[in-house]
């Protein structure tokens, strides 16, 4: 659906070469100062790739050995954090997809990162797992002051806990902003009007507005720019229709996304 997110993440992590531009993490250029730039980064790219012939604990030890100062206590700490205490000595080949994912997160957290990069992190998790995972990320972000970069095409899921969104299409950034701003930016929104009677509504509004949907005798829905709300109110007042309530229909990120990408050809 969206092209370029895994490639972008790989470029950030130094796994692929960039043709132009720079990546800086914690102030260090990934090209010139790779080891320093990557030191405080934890990541899962594509899928949590682990050595399936090793146990979960051995996998963590492998990673710990790749850093200079990771102690045994830290391994136990992350194991507890992802809730794998009981199965950590088992071979990864015996793990379920969800357990592998949790092990992947434990690995990513092992070096106390201040930037966590996750590519499609909830793939293969059950709803409960997704919920737990979300809680964990929110906790990490708040308590450990950790920045978390997530790529996903499951927009509904991102909406639940992301604060900033970047939309990439065909390898190009088409929007990068805080979540609220993306949802509220100058695009048409739906409003639900509760009125005395909806019978004559279409006749009154059809000259100026097209997207009108009569829900029942007292409710109709109209998609308009927000500057138009007062105009409609005026029109209704002029036609002596009583307005009881106006409700803005909450737009989903998905809708916002479609709105943004509308008209662009997606390969």
């Amino acid at each position, binding site marked *: 659906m969206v092209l370029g997110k895994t490639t972008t993440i790989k470029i950030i992590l130094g796994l692929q070469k960039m043709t132009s531009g720079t990546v800086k993490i914690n102030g260090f250029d990934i090209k010139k100062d790779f080891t320093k730039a990557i030191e405080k980064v934890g990541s899962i790219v594509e899928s949590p790739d682990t050595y399936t012939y*090793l146990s979960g604990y051995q996998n963590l030890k492998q990673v710990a050995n790749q850093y200079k100062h990771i102690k045994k206590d830290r391994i136990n700490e992350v194991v507890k954090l992802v809730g794998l205490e009981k199965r950590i000595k088992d071979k990864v080949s015996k793990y379920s997809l969800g357990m592998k994912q949790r092990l992947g997160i434990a690995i990513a957290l092992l070096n106390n990162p201040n930037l966590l990069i996750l590519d499609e992190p909830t793939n293969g998790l059950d709803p409960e797992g997704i919920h737990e995972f979300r809680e964990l990320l929110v906790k990490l972000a708040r308590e450990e002051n950790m920045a978390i970069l997530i790529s996903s095409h499951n927009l509904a899921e991102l909406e639940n806990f992301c604060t900033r969104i970047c939309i990439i299409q065909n390898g190009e950034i088409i929007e990068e902003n805080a979540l609220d701003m993306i949802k509220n930016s100058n695009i048409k929104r739906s409003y639900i009007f509760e009125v005395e009677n909806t019978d004559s509504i279409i006749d009154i509004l059809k000259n100026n507005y097209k997207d009108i949907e009569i829900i029942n005798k007292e409710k109709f829905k109209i998609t308009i720019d927000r500057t138009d709300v007062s105009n409609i109110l005026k029109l209704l007042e002029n036609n002596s229709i009583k307005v009881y309530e106006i409700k803005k229909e909450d737009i989903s990120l998905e809708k916002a996304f479609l709105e943004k990408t509308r008209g662009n050809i997606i390969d």
Partner: protein
Amino acid sequence: MIRLIKNELVKIFSKKSFYIILLVIFGLIIFQNINFRSYYYEEWSEMEEELYNLQLSMMGINTNSYSGAMDFAYTAVKQDLLEDISDTYGNESWQAYVILRDSEYIAYNIYYDYYLAQNFEDELSYFDFELNDEDKLLVPDKEQATAKYNELNEIFSSNDWRAFAKMQLSYLLEEKHDLDYILTSEYTPDLQNQIYKIETDIEVINTRLGKNIPFAYDYLNDAIDNYKYAKCEIYKIDNDTTRENTYENQKEYQNLVETFEKSNYIIQNKLDTENKDTTRYKLSSTFESSNQQLFILAIIVYISATIVSEEINNGTIKQLLTKPNNRLKILLSKLITCFIMIIFASILIPFMVYIANALFNETESLRIPMIMYNFSTSTLMEMDMIKYLFIQFLSKLPLFMIIMIIAFTLGTLFKNSIIAVLVPLFIYISGKYLIELTSNNISILKFLPTTGWELNNVLFGRLHEFEGITLNLSIIVYLIYFILLLLISFISFAKADIKNQ
């Protein structure tokens, strides 16, 4: 770095497939080393009899000349006699041995002279030509021949080999006396060599008596034969002023010197150093036998080919590359791990051979020291098995390392374990053919790594089978290839993009 290497080792030794390979190799080694009973000496005399029959049937064509007839008779008599002796004393008896061995010609000559003296007339009528007067002089004196024949038969039936040796000694001294006399009147190099041969025979019989070595089908008698042959050949070459100092001749001379020194060692110490059925021999040839070499290479190639490509294919490479370690450092840690695995395989395979032999063969022979001839210092080096194997290992290290780096580079370049496993093994096998090609003196082949990768051919001053290949050249050619491949793998790895799945 050490922690990264430790990581790699943990990964290798946690794989089930690795242990399966080791188990299969151990099974094959056991199978190879089960000591099928040696038939070498037991069947030998029977085989020889068959050989004579064959020889006779082929010689039959040539019986219309005197020399052809004599050859025929000589062989036919030997054939008859061998049957008689075998029937009376047994196939394995020293009596059968001294009749059969060409090197112990005296006993047989007595029989032959006696036979010829007895049956001369009959024998002649069988062929369709007549003897001239000169030929008649060669017919032995009947009385003398009979006396010798009786004396020999007496010694044979007394079953005293020492008496036979002493008899041989007196005959040889007599012969030498005659030849010395001829030498005073007319000197020829041939005559000189003949005298030297008799002197050597005398020396050997004295050694035999002194060291108590009976005539028998055994390693000591083999060593005595080799000793005599090598000593006489060396003498011949040393006194041959016309001999050219070509590379081939130098090599031949080296081989003779080595045979001489080694046989002398066997005789002096009465140690069976050449027996191929012993645990000692099998263990010592671990690095030389192509099977065992292939086992070591299989382990090396398996590790080197997969150590990078497997990580790329499983995606775990991302795990490695997104850690604060330089890519070159990561690759170097993997390369060092491969080197450690060469050492591991080079210890494990000899150990497996030892275990297989200790279970199904014997361990007694390991007490016999290993011997190697040093051409640079002209000394015979005596060493224990561990040191010997270590030298062999060092001399094979270039081969192991270059096969390792080929597998390693291919695994890094193509990310395909199958290519990286098969190609190095093909190169190893075709290397053997290339070495054969070098004998055609195609000089370009000198610069292939294959010709110089087995240093045991040039160690301790030994001349390489092919002219122009020296230890120094081998090392230089070898280093160029090694460094080139090393650079290819490092550069490609440093620049590689990890593609999306």
